[in-house]
């Protein structure tokens, strides 16, 4: 049986979100490591500029999200795709039998 499963728009959108988050994380990671601004925030706190402050907080949140939560989210996304594939395959199989 040759079954082609078209990716749903929702899945495509989710995949794009993940890629954007990872890309954003690496861009900010490189930026903050070159400017050494996270350590400035952690040791200087109120003496950092508002932009640096926001960027650093965003970086820290993004790092925790990317390293801690994203693997589980990706696994659930892959699981969801596999389940959709199985359902579609079963339906197609049932149709063929009818």
């Amino acid at each position, binding site marked *: 049986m040759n079954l082609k499963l078209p990716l749903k728009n929702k899945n495509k959108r989710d995949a794009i979100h993940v890629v954007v988050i990872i890309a954003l994380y690496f861009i900010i990671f490189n930026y903050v490591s070159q400017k050494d601004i996270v350590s400035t925030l952690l040791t200087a706190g109120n003496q950092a500029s508002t932009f640096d402050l926001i960027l650093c907080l965003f970086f820290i949140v993004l790092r925790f999200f990317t390293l801690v939560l994203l693997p589980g989210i990706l696994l659930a996304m892959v699981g969801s795709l596999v*389940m959709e594939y199985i359902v579609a395959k079963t339906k197609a199989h049932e149709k063929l039998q009818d």
Partner: protein
Amino acid sequence: MFKNKITLKSFLRLTVLSVLFLFGLYFIPHNWCAREAVRIFHNKGDIQNRMAAQAEILVSNEIGRENFKTGSDLFNGEWLFGTYMMSGMGFGQMAVLCPDRKEEYCFAMEKCIRQILSPAVREFDKQSWQSDPVDSLNSDHDHAAYLGYFNLLLSLHRLLKGESEYSELNDRITVALARRLDKSPVLLLQTYPGEYYPVDNCAAIASIGLYDKATGKDHSELLERCVFRMKNDYTDKKTGLLYQCIDGSNGEPADLPRGSGTCLGLYFISFMDAEFSKSLYLSVKRELRGGVLGFGGIKEYPSSCKGERGDIDSGPVIFGYGLSATGFAIAGTRIHGDSEMFRNLYATAYLCGAPHDADGKRNFVTGGHIGNSIMFAMMTALSKDEFAKFCERSGK
């Protein structure tokens, strides 16, 4: 009644996806963050070399108090001193781990020693005591904040290199520290006037013990008395942890037993008394170890004590876990061969430190100068067997 009925199929789907998410949450992040841990623990690969390369850049650049913004001039000065001291210890440990690059690392150690001797670095201690720590060795000003730590570095350098231009200074500081300890009614040196911290004294005592190893001199009687007092009076009987601060007038605790002081103290004391270091490490493991999702952490206060919030020693305390205690404990895991706990703590250090590798160097993005130098010293801490073998090989 319900617009969207929960069918068995959708319930099953939700359950499967939740299980997958939790599986990913529990098994992937800490394993990913700890993927280099085994190599570092066994000193394989070049990660420690990359940290050394980063530290070499750091000590070659002119940095001053203005590079640290703790909000206190004294602490800025302490952190500047600590950056050179910890980097120096890291280089010394690398010289033992990589004997073929010993000369290079001893040279880097000497850079740190020269920086520590510069007036700018001595200033923080001079301001507190109203006397220079090195120029006042004949006086009764203890200067444990500067001399205790600095002499540990000098003694390690002497153990590695033998006689050098710094030997005479090492002799003079050791004599001064031993004399001041002997005179102290509580067998503790003052870090600053009227302030007694067991952790700083661990550095001072270890520096004398290491000096004896390097030179063959004998301060064993004094050291035994100091360690005995440290074990019996300055270690909490219930938890086995070092008190953070002692009241010098009566030798009674002036603060709670804490993780940051104990974890750093056990690292220092391992250079002269591996057994005492081990007993402190086991206490840390029993009383303070914790973590979440496979990421290890060390609490600042034992559960039997009602801890307060963090201070400059502990760093930020988040849900009871201390940043300094967790970082310093990494050395303890290496010294006492605890690969499992090293893995857990390394995962946390990786997650929170955000290491960035470029041009053969490793920079912990969130660490700054002091964080990078501490991580360098902790990640290269010598196991007690490695250190004993090294001493045996070099006939010390």
